[in-house]
């Protein structure tokens, strides 16, 4: 820049140091002594600095047990061959034994050809007992202290469908006369925004309509959790804690196996059960028969009967995500 003032004697260097910019006549102590002292101080500083860095980052080294090299290098679920998935499952089984003391069986059931799952829930008879949420908690090996579940049951005020007037923390005998109850879980959208936003394709929609997560591929950015309009996704804020005796040993890779810390999880319509011809745990636990599950492609299925004969609606239809979870009322 065009600066009219003459160069200040103070620049570029005060001369109190031994830097190359210092003028020759600057410091009284002989150059050698000064620079030796300086070098010693610098060496000391560097050593202390390195030690401080090592100490600060030491907690990372305690992780090596949990994240093996095999885990680190594991490929995306869809890219694993049959043999590779078998190896991975063996490793996961061992980890469950080592870390939780539980003998588990991890399967990898595939979607059945031509099947598309749908779920319907009868709001006229749901009584808000939360047995479904409890069954989900146990079936899916959820973290015990946080009492996690994929299902949240809202106590709604009759005359309104606004969740703002709903309450999830009710603590009194049910059902209350002026209330109705609305359990909410993953709606298994036809156009799932959670899948769109995932930067690493760690979550996708399977052929039978179930949106799944590869817990070993998810990076834990929680973008899907921000994108989901149904509060259906959960994050493992820490390593799940479950006593060995309470662990459900009947597990699958894409559903209820014990999740690692720092990854997303969600309702999978209990695919380890439903892909083998059983019903979801939440349905089996329901004492009122409010829950109806089945194959949307099968004209004879109960869920199809509901869709064709009841007054059915889906949550937040205006968002255009086409949920495969339906709510209905009796005539």
């Amino acid at each position: 820049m065009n600066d009219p003032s003459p160069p200040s004697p103070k620049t570029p260097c005060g001369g109190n140091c031994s830097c190359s910019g210092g003028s020759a006549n600057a410091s009284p102590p002989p150059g050698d002594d000064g620079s030796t002292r300086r070098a010693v101080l610098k060496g000391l500083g560097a050593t202390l600095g390195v030690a401080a860095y090592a100490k600060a980052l030491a907690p990372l080294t305690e992780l090596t047990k949990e994240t093996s090299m095999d885990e680190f290098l594991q490929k995306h679920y869809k890219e694993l061959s049959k043999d590779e998935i078998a190896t991975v499952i063996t490793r996961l089984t061992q980890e469950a034994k080592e870390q939780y003391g539980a003998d588990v069986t991890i399967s990898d059931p595939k979607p059945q050809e031509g099947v598309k799952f749908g779920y319907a829930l009868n709001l006229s008879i749901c009584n808000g007992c939360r047995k479904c949420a409890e069954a989900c908690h146990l079936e899916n090996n959820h973290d015990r202290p946080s009492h996690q579940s994929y299902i949240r049951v809202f106590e709604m005020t009759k005359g309104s469908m606004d969740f703002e007037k709903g309450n999830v923390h009710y603590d009194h005998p049910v059902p209350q006369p002026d209330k109705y109850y609305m359990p909410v879980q993953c709606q298994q959208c036809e156009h799932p925004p959670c899948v769109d936003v995932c930067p690493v394709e760690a979550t996708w929609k399977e052929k039978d309509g179930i949106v799944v997560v590869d817990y070993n591929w998810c990076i834990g950015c929680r973008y899907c959790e921000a994108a989901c309009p149904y509060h259906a996704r959960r994050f493992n804020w820490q390593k799940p804690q479950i006593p060995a005796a309470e662990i459900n040993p009947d597990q699958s890779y894409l559903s209820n196996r014990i999740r690692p810390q720092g990854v997303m999880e969600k309702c999978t319509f209990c695919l380890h059960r439903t892909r083998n011809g059983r019903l979801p745990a939440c349905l089996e636990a329901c004492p009122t028969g409010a829950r109806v599950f089945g194959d949307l492609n099968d004209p004879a299925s109960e869920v199809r009967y509901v869709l064709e004969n009841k007054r059915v609606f889906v949550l937040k239809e205006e968002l255009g995500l086409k949920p495969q979870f339906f709510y209905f009322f009796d005539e």
Partner: protein
Amino acid sequence: MSDSAVIPVPAKPVPEWRQYLRFAWNAFSQSVEGGWKFYVWMTLLTAVFLVGANAWAVQVRDGMALTAMSDHVSWGLYIANFTFLVGLAAGGVMMVIPAYLYHDEQMHDIVIIGELLAIAAIIMSIMFVVCDLGRPDRFWHMMPGLGKFNFPVSMLTWDVIVLNGYFAINVYICGYLLYKRFRAQQPVAKMYMPAVFLSIVWAISIHTVTAFLYCGLGGRPFWNTALLAPRFLASAFVSGPAFIIVAIQIIRWQTGRMFGEGAIRTLVGIVRITILISLLMVVSEIFVEFYTGGSHTGAAKYLYFGLHGHHELVPWIWTSIVFTIVAVVLFMQPKVNRRPVLLNTACLLAFVGLWIEKGMGMIIPAFIPSTLHEIVEYRPSLTEWKITAGIWALGFMIYTLLLKITINIHSRKLKDTSGARTVTPDDALAMADGGGLV
């Protein structure tokens, strides 16, 4: 045979890349030299950074449960800072546009201050994202080619591309210009001007894409507004220049040289407009929210006035509003150009005000009430504050070193001493004008 034997070694020109490496090494090793004030400043920053690094290491080991985030408020202080810093990086372009598009000579001389800010801010914003990941060890899953890159559907992959691209462009421009000055050569326009023009477009893109991350989500009405990207840009063009105005003065004070008076005046002129645009957009958002009403207003109600007895964010946002309005009033004073105290107060208030507005005031309310209208509040935990402070400290360290390199080169304290070059008349001119910083 005998001919080749007599070719003297020094005559063989040193390849450009080796020259560049030598330049980079000299630049770095000299940048960490300094007086006691410099060492105190850097030691302080290192200490804060280490506190943050340790907090992060513990967070990776023990889990994100150490943060105050939850399944209801799943993004917090980290993503708030990330958003703001992308804006700060984009804001650096407000020096580039006057310098290169309007040929503002004074700005041209010191435009690198803004480009270096972009580099530091991008590094910080990427670090904030990494600290927000539950599994940073799986970072490679995001790398195109190596992992699975969900492009173009996921806006986050767009953000990865534009942020890294912006970083690369600015590193290239700064690296080239400093290297040329180091070698006392005139920069060749066609070597860097295309990158400069690209960086202008790119700066707009980084903040637009970052806004698209949020505003494309139909399930979050608070974000789901087309005004978000323009709002982001307007506020970025306040926070960037505000920071640079203060930075120029600090460099002047440290080097004892007066420069950049005209540049500051230009930047003040820019801020006077952008801060009003920014405020106007906030006002029109508030109008739409509250005049329309309905349950989609829940987030705005919670943010500005509290909802059903929950008002964690109310002090934050009113601090921001008051700071911004006071900054507007100060910037509008004609005497702001003559009174550094007024100017710096205005810059500081605008900077902090927008840090809140774009951060805590922008990210958190989208989650409160939740998509199913539950209210779970959020107040950052100590771990989050430590990591945040650590990243800011690192950012200041990087910016300090980058500025030192620049000052060393511009003051010719750091110069090419290999002697293996010829000085052309052009180069002599470039050296003589002393250009820019000092």
